[in-house]
């Protein structure tokens, strides 16, 4: 594939990724605004912790995240990721269980979480692709 074509597709993918992330943010805010109930914003706290391993390790040697030899900090950030994934599912569920928000807000929250998850996974995959293609 021609080099210019490849760069064009690459930036197209990045743009799509940005749209995905902003879509997730919109869903999150809609979940609050439509029902005039700002409690679901608590999940934003979890979303801040979620991309931490990416922020810390994506710039540096990303193989260290996917390979076996992880030092303690890599393990700790993975731990935080796992906990925040559960937390972003748990907070809306607890709010629904306590009767603070309704079913509509709950589904919006969960779909916003799914959108973010897809975006992050795609970003990781794109990054590992880049490593192999930039060798040429």
């Amino acid at each position, binding site marked *: 594939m021609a080099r210019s074509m490849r760069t064009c597709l690459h930036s197209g993918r990045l743009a799509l990724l940005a749209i995905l992330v902003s879509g997730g943010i919109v869903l999150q805010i809609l979940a609050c605004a439509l029902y005039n109930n700002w409690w679901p914003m608590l999940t934003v706290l979890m979303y801040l912790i979620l991309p931490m391993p990416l922020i810390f390790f994506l710039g540096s040697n990303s193989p260290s995240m996917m390979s076996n030899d992880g030092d303690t900090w890599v393990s*700790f950030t993975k731990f935080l*990721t796992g906990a925040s994934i559960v937390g972003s599912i748990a907070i809306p569920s607890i709010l629904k269980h306590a009767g603070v928000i309704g079913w509509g807000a709950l589904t919006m929250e969960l779909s916003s979480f799914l959108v973010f998850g897809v975006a992050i996974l795609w970003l990781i995959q794109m990054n590992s692709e880049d490593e192999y293609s930039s060798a040429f």
Partner: protein
Amino acid sequence: MDTTSFPAVWAVVGPGVAGAVFGVGWWFWVDAVVCSAAAVPFLHYLPGLFASFAALMFNCVKREDANYNYYSPYDDSEWRLKLWLFVSYVVSFVSLAGAVGFLVQDALTDTGPSAWTGVAGVLQSVFVLIRGLF
């Protein structure tokens, strides 16, 4: 990412799974406290806190290969490691017993059912944490 063998995959996602189960444990507890009709006294928080502390203790031990030392000059330091592990096990089982005790006691009044899911979850998180960081 090496997806061929299970130990390799586990080494990569293990800490994430440990974090997830730890989160599940604590969020069940939060749900129990939020949705309970009566106020939950601080005493009931203790089993969960101690279980998490035991998990932390357990994870301070870096590698299990520190146990298997074929060089006999290190004989005298082995017992410290084993004592540490033993104490962390004891603390986790005692907090489990405490949680069961609170459940039985509270079944008589009001804050019973959900309180158990919380602390049991935290205890499970201890065990996953045990496997998780190794």
